[in-house]
């Protein structure tokens, strides 16, 4: 389906958020998605790429995709202007287990643009804040300039119903917060490993160390939930690129618990 770029938000030097609305208003009404899912975006003339939803799932008049400029399609996407058209297929994939998490504390650990697929989950939890226990967000970026959703992070930090801890790998003269990888924030937080569900997304190396630390803290394997990344083409389990063991990430993932990851040999830590 054809969608129109309504708004482009500069997040970091190489990342933009695109606000998109379907041309066909009837289709827009029927278009439902869950936090954690993704769409295949066609930038006409360049190709197609899978991008995760990054906006509030309850907002039905538009959705947002956060895109880092890396390959052919994302480069072409960054060249788009307001009012231009893209093609959308989807939604694809599974979602964060937000229903099952009700009544529990929530810990979100994210790095870099890994915050994008978690943002709908955060917004959903905040919209139903009473149904969850303590809510803690850890976020790591390379430098202060590489922080995604600065406006959200600053607003969330001011809320008294959630706690936000941030870190950067390399600070600058204005940065007064923590410096170090995201796991260095673990000393500063108090979580009840028995009653908390952890959602994590970020670079593979971050997911690895976060998972190892969480296991040490007493999180059970089915309470550590990650969104995995793989090179992907078709989105419907046919092209074979995203397949890990016999599981096609685009149809059965990208969200897996560590208990499930262990069964997929390549994701075992």
């Amino acid at each position, binding site marked *: 389906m*054809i969608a129109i770029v309504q708004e482009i938000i500069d997040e970091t030097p190489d990342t933009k958020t695109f606000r998109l609305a379907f041309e066909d208003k009837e289709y827009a009404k029927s278009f439902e998605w869950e936090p954690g899912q993704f769409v295949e975006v066609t930038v*006409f*003339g360049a*190709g197609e790429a899978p991008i995760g939803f990054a906006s509030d799932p309850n907002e039905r008049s538009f959705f947002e995709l956060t895109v880092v400029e890396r390959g052919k399609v994302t480069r072409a996407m960054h060249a788009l202007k307001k009012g231009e058209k893209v093609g959308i297929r989807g939604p694809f994939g599974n979602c964060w287990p937000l229903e099952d998490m009700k009544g529990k504390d929530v810990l979100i650990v994210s790095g870099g643009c890994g915050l994008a697929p978690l943002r709908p989950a955060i917004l959903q939890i905040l919209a139903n804040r009473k149904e969850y226990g303590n809510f803690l967000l850890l976020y790591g970026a390379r430098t202060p300039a590489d922080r995604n959703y600065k406006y959200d992070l600053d607003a969330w930090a001011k809320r008294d119903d959630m706690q936000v801890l941030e870190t950067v790998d390399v600070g600058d003269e204005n940065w007064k917060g923590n410096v170090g990888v995201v796991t260095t924030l673990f000393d500063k937080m108090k979580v009840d490993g028995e009653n908390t569900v952890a959602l994590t997304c970020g*670079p593979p190396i971050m997911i690895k160390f976060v998972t190892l630390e969480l296991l040490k803290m007493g999180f059970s394997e089915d309470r550590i939930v990650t969104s995995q990344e793989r*090179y992907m083409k078709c989105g*419907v*389990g*046919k092209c074979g690129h995203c397949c890990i063991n016999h599981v096609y990430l685009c*149809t059965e993932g990208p969200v897996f618990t560590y208990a499930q990851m262990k069964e997929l040999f390549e994701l075992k830590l």
Partner: protein
Amino acid sequence: MKKDYSILKKSDVPAFFASLANEMQLIGPKQLFAGDVTFDVIQSHKDIYWDYGHVVYPPKRFLLPHFEDMFRYTCDEQIKIEPTCNPQPQAIVAIRSCDVAAIRFQENFFSYPIVDPYYKERLNNTVLFNLVCNTPPKEECFCICCDSGPWLESGFDVQLTDLGDRFLYEVGSDKGEKATEPRAYMLLPATPADIEARRQIELQADSRFQTVSYLAKAINFISADEVPAKIWEDLGSTCFRCGACTNLCPVCTCFTVDDREEPDGTFTRCRSWDSCQYAGFTREASGHNPRPTFGSRVARRFYHKTSYQYIIRDGRHGCVGCGRCITACLTKLGLPDVVKRIRREMHEFLPPKEKAAEV
């Protein structure tokens, strides 16, 4: 459906396929100028090279083309999208049992859980005339280990067995029935002697194989992730990453998708064959590659071919024993050799007690 045997006399074969050619495009084994035989479009039924033995290049491309245009679009003010897939009726004549089994595997893969309309549409328009192998199998053939030949119980539309001056003609599907009907007058009823002659051919065929692949144990090791990375790395160390194994494999389906600019300024979305043996197959835009080594990619290929998880998922293991990966590989990374090396080298990894039991 009830098995129905008839006889097609070889003297009637030209008329039969000339008549079929009026209804659909014929694809069949064709001898090229230099003497090589390959599956190609048959212009005249006379070009069907019946005594071809085996071909290196499978007829996979007639159902899953190297480059398949999916749709075309314009980038003007109004985005216009036009479908380009319009498969015409075709018959693949004198295809071998292993390749038919591979097509059934692909059919299953492309139908479940999500239907691939491009493959499905092509296959719906294709009739398979299987020719039973009663020539000696080539050195690399091991279909007998893979439940995919030399003759088939099911899966074919029509199956032909060469009985000298005549073919035993079996119809195996509604599609086969439909393709036979207008020419049914050319068929004669089969006699018990014809059926006995075929049984004898089957019995002989069983004893002729030179290559065997004892898959079961390797399937166990691979399914349970028990093959140490070192064995895979040793195997991978000889891989030239040419991709010939996956390109020649009649079962392999992986593809990539690109948008191609046409001279008239429109764009075509095109899918083309890809190979899990290439480093770029899993390399992400960030540069991170979850399968960074040759060994990890070879492990991936054999996991897909032989693991229980895939057998459950796809109804059979992903090898039909055609032996093409053996023919193609410069360094013996064909399935039987890998299975043999896994069995042998795993033996060295096992503790002494189990080792004794293993011998």
